[in-house]
């Protein structure tokens, strides 16, 4: 539906002055397109064969496996617990709910260096509140190992699923679930057949956002990892190591791989959002 001013054809008179556009393009050009151009130029200069070689060195592949694997694991764990937390926030009433709600935002608000310091301290095998018992009882070393990297990724990607699922869960009509119970479905059946399909786009969107964030995360991971290649070195840290060794081409190529991943993930997240909106539109149209 076009708004009235569009249909009445009054738009040309009301055209905004061009200076907001000028500022927008100038600023975007300076802070976004120029840096993107620089990395593309440098990556193009490496050439396709060189690019492929530098992008697939054993060291680089080991970091991809660690970064993408752990980020996927962390975002899936948060997919499950995020759903549970969103459910607790929307469908139950209990003391401390307000506090729980605000704690969820802490990983967004807390600077990543602080998060890294906190996690490194809590999960230290020597004297950490959680790390010491974990090491003593189960022999699990969390800080300065790949487990610690995973823990940091869980920490920073926790809010995403909660915050995408919460509004959708709030807007669900309870009548549908009641109808499903009246028709003889059990609660589990109702959840799987009626509730879950409606939440699915939100859950997937949240998982994808958390995954994308965890792959690119640096600050909180670098402090809890020992940053040893093939053990617990993540891709962003590898880029920094390459820069420190003045291997600019190596850093550029791996940085371009991360950049391509960021573009693809942005596309996927947008597609999931479009899908979710369409889903909501059709389901409310029927209901």
């Amino acid at each position, binding site marked *: 539906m076009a708004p009235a*001013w569009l249909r009445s054809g009054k738009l040309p008179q*009301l055209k*905004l002055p061009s*200076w*907001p556009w000028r*500022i*927008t393009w100038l*600023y*975007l050009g300076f802070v976004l397109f*120029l*840096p*993107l151009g*620089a*990395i593309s*130029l*440098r990556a193009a200069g490496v050439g396709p064969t060189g690019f492929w070689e530098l992008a697939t060195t054993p060291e680089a592949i080991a970091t991809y496996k660690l970064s993408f694997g752990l980020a996927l694991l962390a975002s899936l764990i948060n997919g499950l*617990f995020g759903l549970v*937390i969103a459910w*607790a*926030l929307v*469908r*139950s*009433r209990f003391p401390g709910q307000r506090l*729980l709600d*605000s*704690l969820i*935002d802490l*990983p967004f*608000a*807390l*600077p*990543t*260096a*602080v*998060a890294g*310091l*906190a*996690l490194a301290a*809590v999960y230290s095998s020597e004297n950490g*509140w*959680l790390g010491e018992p974990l090491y003593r009882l189960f022999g699990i070393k969390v800080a300065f190992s790949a487990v610690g990297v995973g823990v940091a990724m869980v920490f920073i990607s*926790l809010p995403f699923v909660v915050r995408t699922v919460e509004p959708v869960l709030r807007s669900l009509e309870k009548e549908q679930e009641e109808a499903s*119970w009246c028709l003889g479905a059990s*609660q589990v059946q109702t959840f799987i057949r009626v509730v879950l399909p409606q939440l699915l786009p939100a859950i997937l969107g949240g998982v994808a956002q958390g995954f*994308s964030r965890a792959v*690119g995360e*640096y*600050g909180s991971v670098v*402090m809890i990892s020992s940053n040893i290649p093939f053990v617990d070195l993540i*891709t*962003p840290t590898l*880029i920094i190591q390459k*820069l420190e060794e003045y291997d600019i081409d190596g*850093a*550029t190529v791996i*940085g371009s791989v*991360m*950049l391509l991943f*960021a573009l693809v993930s*942005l596309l996927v997240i947008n597609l999931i959002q479009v899908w979710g909106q369409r889903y909501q539109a059709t389901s409310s149209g029927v209901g």
Partner: protein
Amino acid sequence: MTFVVPDLEIYKPPSLGKGAKAPSLRSKVLGAIIPLIACLYVGLVILTPALSVVVQAFAKGVQPFLENLSSPDLLSAVKMTLLTAAIAVPANTIFGLAAATAIARKKFRGKALLLSIIDLPFSISPVVVGLMLVLLYSPNHGVFGGVINSLGWKIIFSWPGIVMATIIVTFPFMAREVIPLLEEEGWEQEEAAKTLGANDWQVFWKVTLPSVRWAALYGLILTTARALGEFGAVSVVSGNIRGETQTLPLFVEDAYKQYQTELAFGAAAVLGGVALVSMLLKFVVEQLLEQDKKAHQIKSDA
């Protein structure tokens, strides 16, 4: 309001005759278990690390904590952080408001694409943002390296690089908060102001800006909080020289690496305090935003 785990022995199954709404035993247990799991998980993953910072920072009492804060390196890091925010936040505010007024009320091909482009810094790893700046401005490897050398400027490993990295990482916040609100509202008020003879600048100051004031404030809080806490992008371009190009988040990591644990936790507690204040402010502005939205709805319904 409390939740009670039903005692299994005295629990009576609901009689089917009296309305179907009585909750089953299973749903009551489930109703208690879900919040319990949620609280345990968040307590373990988020609350415990957060508390540890507070405890470690004040482990020896308030006096040593304050002494730590007066370390000259820490104070210089605070100054650097404040300088960065003082440049990055106003610049991004101007861009955010300009982009919002330009984009929000127009329909054009590629609008969704442009919005995605503005969102891009949220998906790019901060380290890659820093890398891109190095490839652009580094005197040895940068595209503009020659120009910068001949002008005698220093961007990488100096404050301009830090400011630019911060700007890139934080510029989407403002536009993202303001655009949806402007899209929702109609053109009528601006139209009226123009008919009454206001110029574009007056329309912006007296009509557009007041109508999005809480959203803009919200964006401002998010921008500032992130600008004060940015680590990854800044660490690539700063050179991390103590007392010179170190921001507060970089100082936290550096002090921790040098085994100055108390100093690290002191600085971390300061940053944590800033984060808490930003969360509090966000909460207040969210309430104001909601009130405004309701007022708008009433107006448009009437």
